[in-house]
């Protein structure tokens, strides 16, 4: 295939590390007809971090936790941005009790799943957190300061730039949080299978509540596009959670 290096880079790193040379040779000889199957295979591997090679039970749980946090932050982010920037129905959905319950459940699920830093590596864990989150935190703080000094009364272009910076800070914060968890690796204690299952189940409930809320209000408004699209998108993310929850059942209690 022509785009072999690009396709290879799409595979999870542990998979590339294990099968790199053979995988590259296989991708080179495969024709265009193999492209959909290859992309489906890549997506399938990303959705099952529990099966990636070279994983101790601890590392497997950390990978699953990172994925759950990534999907949860994606759910929270798309819900918030739709409520704030979507149409009237999405805005109304954001003020409904169901959405509040959904966001609270997502927050609770994240707290349940949070990997606990060990006392010995506490300083190093904090250093990783600070390093990774410095940029989004600075960007977010900059937006807050800009609003307080009167960006609200600035020309529309400036206001749009400030709003864009705010959402960029939140998106970057979400990405960097996942990278910080992955980077903390040996310094943190990822949740045991029971806690992993409980946290994932709570996240499923939260995301389902957000999806139901957005779809309900969108339907009332005659299928408001942003609300419908985000509601359906959340249902797709929900499928990722369900797969993850299913994989947690393959973890033994002692892992």
């Amino acid at each position: 295939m022509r785009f072999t290096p690009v396709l290879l880079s799409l595979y999870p790193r542990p998979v590339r590390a294990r099968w790199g040379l053979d995988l590259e040779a296989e991708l080179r000889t495969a024709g265009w007809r193999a492209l959909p199957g290859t992309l489906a295979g890549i997506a399938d591997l990303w959705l099952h971090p529990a099966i990636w090679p070279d994983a101790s039970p601890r590392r497997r749980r950390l990978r699953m936790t990172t994925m759950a946090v990534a999907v949860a932050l994606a759910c929270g982010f798309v819900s918030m941005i739709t409520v704030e920037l979507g149409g009237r129905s999405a805005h109304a959905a954001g003020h409904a009790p169901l959405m509040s319950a959904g966001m609270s459940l997502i927050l609770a699920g994240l707290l349940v799943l949070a990997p606990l830093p060990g006392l010995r590596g506490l300083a190093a864990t904090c250093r990783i957190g600070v390093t990774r989150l410095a940029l989004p935190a600075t960007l977010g703080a900059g937006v807050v300061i800009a609003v307080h000094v009167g960006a609200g009364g600035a020309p529309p272009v400036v206001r749009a730039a400030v709003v864009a910076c705010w959402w960029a800070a939140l998106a970057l914060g979400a990405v960097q949080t996942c990278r910080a968890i992955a980077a903390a690796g040996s310094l943190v204690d990822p949740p045991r299978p029971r806690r992993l299952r409980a946290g994932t189940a709570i996240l499923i409930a939260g995301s389902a509540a957000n999806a139901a809320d957005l779809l309900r209000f969108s339907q009332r408004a005659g299928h408001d596009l942003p609300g419908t699209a985000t509601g359906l998108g959340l249902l797709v993310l929900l499928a990722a959670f369900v797969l993850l929850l299913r994989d947690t059942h393959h973890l033994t209690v002692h892992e």
Partner: protein
Amino acid sequence: MHSNDAQTLVLTVLADGPLHGYAINTAIEQLTGRRLGPGSLYGALTRLEAKQLIEPLAEEGRQRPLRLTDKGRTALERELRTMAHVASVGLRSLGVGPA
């Protein structure tokens, strides 16, 4: 071809001895006339290793051959016996003798 079929094919060709990824697909091509797509093959290899049905040997150059574990051998035998039983029942129902 379903992922379980791909896993059975991988186990079957590894029953002959250790092979690395690309050679596994070449052996599958010799057996069935078709190579598995990269998506199916590496998904199957990753799953089989996670289930401890296959295991990597020491690296040969930049490639790592894989071999069947005892657990893998047992799983393959069970799978093949089930398939043989299904094939024999199906052929009998069709009134056709085994090939």
